[in-house]
């Protein structure tokens, strides 16, 4: 057999978007033409069509537009799928128009793409359309983006112009969530850097576009961490075989591994895995398989098999970006729709539209409806709990469609962001004066440990916890923390104390006591505590942490049962009297500004897990109470 029939080639799905004259169709035509994917009869029909239109040279763009209406108006109005292959890889292109009125088509094309090719016209630079395509690529979580700076022939192949555009795009892309970004200067018309490098841009040292498409590693488009298996169909040919058919949405599964079935939460073990007529030891994301289990459990379509220690979010309320796709209706607050998500259909109610997003600028504006091609952030309540992951983490379990209950048309596409609780937290933070800015680099993803929290707990023989002591300066927090740490340590517990003064010597030595700096201080401490917690420790934190908002931020870093807030209450006058560090005296003399309890407020916790009043208890009594409380939680 020849090299052409190599069946080990893998597949790359990518999307392109563009308008009438940015050269997108020419680019695709060029890739098909130069990689010898155009057949003789297609070429003949192309020549006939070009001649009819009175054109002298064959218009490569004609290759890629299909429907008659489109040919007449010379526009593409839908998603067209194109296929070509090279000896290295097979490609499926989702080719979409780029105009604003076709946002829904871009969203559709992007939903299954591993990569997006965004075209810039070297003369015109970053047009709204290029921004729109980049924003959609980011919203739809396409893992790889290639920016092709086209029409370099019309700017004399100028290196300076290319770098200018790269800078401009990079500045813009900082606001987006794009993990892997490439730039290539090309001329689709002349063929430079499309299939071959050519010799007109010697200053460009990278690979031509097709080479990048052939060589880019696409595994990161698949989530191989979180095992999710939505059951599609039950195969039961006879009494002894009950198989659950489905496509592994993400993660991997092996024979013998334990699974939890949702919604029943029953446990079982995988007895066998079948792909077609073969038994296999394991199955991975995107494989259609049939699983059988050790126990007889009633499972039907719409249920989900997951790993017992890695559950998806199970919630009826969530918030999502929704792109509205229907011409004859608008999404409105209070509306009821059908929601199709993995293999389930549920009724869903629209509670609220948080904002509409301008897909050219990312600008947010208030609204109570979303019309065709508009994208907004929407809060919904489903009639039944859904099993989902945030879309950023898992496209298969984070994406859904909305269906009109009367016409059954698909009217919207949704990408789940958060549960409602997390959304409210985010909004609260955004409304706050000094925002808790979290700048997460786009090149960082969370690295999954091979050790589960449960394994650490088993080895330590206790749960990991965060004990957070808050209260006025002088209330006794540090004393309690030191004694509790010592006592627990002697009981064999991995206890570790984080103290306000200590962190300000190093981790937070760059921070003062402004509102903003205090926020940052608490955020850093919160994350440090979280790392210790992840390591399996019982972390004891003693900080004034006067603001409710900051404490809420820290609380929500932890699972609900692992964060214990202890309000160390003490009368301000008693604190002033104790004044162990002489700080109250200084503050009252005006030597320290913004001191909590003197000229800055202390917001007492509304619902702490434990409240201790140190004005009326002895030191031993308070320590003993805290210890008792902690032991109950371990």
């Amino acid at each position, binding site marked *: 057999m020849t090299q052409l*029939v190599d069946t080990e080639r893998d597949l790359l799905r990518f999307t392109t978007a563009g308008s009438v004259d940015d050269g997108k169709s020419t680019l695709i035509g060029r890739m098909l033409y130069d990689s010898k994917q155009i057949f003789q009869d297609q070429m003949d029909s192309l020549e006939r069509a070009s001649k009819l239109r009175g054109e002298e040279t064959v218009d490569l763009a004609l290759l890629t537009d299909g*429907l008659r209406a489109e040919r007449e108006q010379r526009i593409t109005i839908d998603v067209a*799928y194109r296929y070509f*292959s090279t000896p290295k890889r097979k490609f499926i292109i989702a080719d979409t128009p780029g105009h604003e009125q076709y946002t829904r088509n871009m969203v559709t094309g992007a*939903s299954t793409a591993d990569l997006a090719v965004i075209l810039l016209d070297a003369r015109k630079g970053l047009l709204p359309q290029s921004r729109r395509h980049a924003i959609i690529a980011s919203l739809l979580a396409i893992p790889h983006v290639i920016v092709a700076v086209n029409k370099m022939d019309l700017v004399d192949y100028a290196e300076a112009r290319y770098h200018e555009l790269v800078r401009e795009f990079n500045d813009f892309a900082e606001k987006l969530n794009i993990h892997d970004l490439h730039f290539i200067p090309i001329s689709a018309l002349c063929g430079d850097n499309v299939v071959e490098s050519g010799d007109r841009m010697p200053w460009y040292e990278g690979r031509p576009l097709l080479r990048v498409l052939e060589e880019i590693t696409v595994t990161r488009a698949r989530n191989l961490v979180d095992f999710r298996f939505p059951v*599609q169909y039950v195969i039961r040919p006879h009494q002894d075989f009950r198989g659950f058919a489905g496509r592994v949405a993400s993660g991997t599964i092996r024979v013998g591994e334990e699974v939890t079935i949702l919604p029943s939460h029953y446990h079982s073990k995988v007895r066998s895995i079948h792909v077609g007529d073969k038994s296999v030891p394991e199955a991975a994301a995107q494989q259609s398989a049939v699983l059988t289990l050790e126990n007889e459990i009633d499972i039907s379509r719409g249920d989900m098999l997951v790993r017992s220690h890695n559950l998806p979010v199970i919630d009826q309320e969530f918030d999502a970006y929704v792109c509205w796709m229907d011409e004859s209706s608008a999404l409105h607050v209070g509306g009821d729709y059908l929601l199709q998500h993995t293999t389930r259909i549920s009724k869903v109610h629209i509670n609220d539209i948080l904002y509409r997003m301008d897909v050219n600028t990312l600008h947010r504006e208030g609204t109570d409806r979303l019309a065709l091609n508009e994208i907004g952030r929407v809060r919904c309540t489903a009639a039944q709990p859904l099993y989902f992951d945030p879309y950023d983490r898992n496209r298969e379990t984070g994406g859904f469609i909305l269906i009109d209950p009367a016409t059954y048309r698909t009217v919207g*596409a949704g990408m789940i962001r958060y549960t409602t609780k997390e959304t409210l937290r985010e909004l609260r933070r955004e409304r706050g004066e000094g925002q808790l800015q979290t700048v997460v680099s786009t090149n960082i993803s969370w690295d999954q440990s091979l050790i589960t929290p449960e394994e650490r707990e088993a080895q330590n023989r206790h749960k990991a916890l965060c004990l957070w002591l808050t209260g006025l300066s002088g209330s006794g927090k540090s004393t309690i923390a030191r004694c509790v740490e010592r006592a627990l340590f002697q009981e064999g517990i991995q206890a570790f104390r984080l103290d306000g003064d200590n962190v300000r010597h190093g981790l937070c030595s760059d921070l003062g006591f402004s509102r903003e700096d205090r926020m940052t201080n608490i955020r850093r401490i919160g994350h440090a505590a979280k790392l210790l917690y992840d390591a399996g420790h019982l972390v004891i934190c003693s900080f004034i942490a006067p603001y409710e908002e900051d404490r809420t931020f820290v609380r929500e870093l932890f699972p609900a049962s692992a964060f214990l807030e202890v309000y160390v209450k003490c009368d301000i006058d008693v604190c002033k009297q104790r004044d162990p560090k002489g700080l109250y005296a200084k503050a009252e003399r005006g030597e320290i500004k913004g001191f909590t309890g003197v000229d800055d407020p202390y917001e007492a916790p509304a619902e702490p897990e434990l409240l201790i009043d140190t004005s009326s208890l002895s030191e031993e009594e308070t320590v003993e109470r805290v210890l008792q409380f902690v032991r109950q939680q371990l």
Partner: protein
Amino acid sequence: MSAYQMNTLEWLESQAMYVMREVAAQFERPVMLFSGGKDSIVMSQLARKAFYPGPIPFPLMHIDTGHNFQETLDYRDWWMNELGATLIVRTVQDSIDQGRVQEEEGPSPSRNALQTVTLLDAIKEFQFDAAMGGARRDEEKARAKERFFSVRDRFGQWDPKNQRPELWHVFNGLKRPGEHFRVFPISNWTELDVWQYIAREEIPMPSLYFSHRREIVRREGVILARSPHVSLLDGERWEPARVRFRTIGDATCTGATESEAASVEDIIDEVAATRVTERGSRADDRRSEAAMEERKKQGYF
């Protein structure tokens, strides 16, 4: 990590099986169309694997134009037996006899357009709510935009403007009374993928696909095989040639190509190197540039 990599064929197979299971789960009375051609053979093999070890949970249906090659019919009956599948046959001849359609006139009357009526009648007769077909998007320009789940109105018509967007792997199969669906599980396959899959699965294929000697006539660049359904025009004559068929359909319009390819491997090499699309040899698509789009709107597959 490489153990989790899927090659193109595995990925396409997985997607097609997923689509078929969605059909079996979402519809009450699905059917799979079977023409005897390579695409429907591959599709039926995928159906067997998608529901293994259970039986294929829907019948297969052949719309027989009456102009089929005998080899196609023999193969069809043998393959159904292999699959253990239920076969329904409905014929264009019956539709003609019942006065539902009129035979085309001329030297090579095609029944290709007539089978649309027979198909829609059969869908009505059995109340099928989803009919799976082996159409591929790479075949023809109008098919490049076809959905996996393609909704048809009560007249079986396809409205390109009223198709549902398809995102991720979520397929909306909800239908109102009178509507039915055409579903295309192998939408993303190319001709080469089909042949590579046939090789991988070692599926026995009808002899028409392999090079053989046969009497033919050349007409407007199309090679038609000698059969009772094709008559000669002035100045034409039957001549012997070594040919094979790239598609198998109605004998009156399915063109052969001159070829020495005698095995699946030969065919793969030939397809990989060829410069003419497979539909390039079909007389029905040549009638006008938008021929396929017109026929699809009428309810053709």
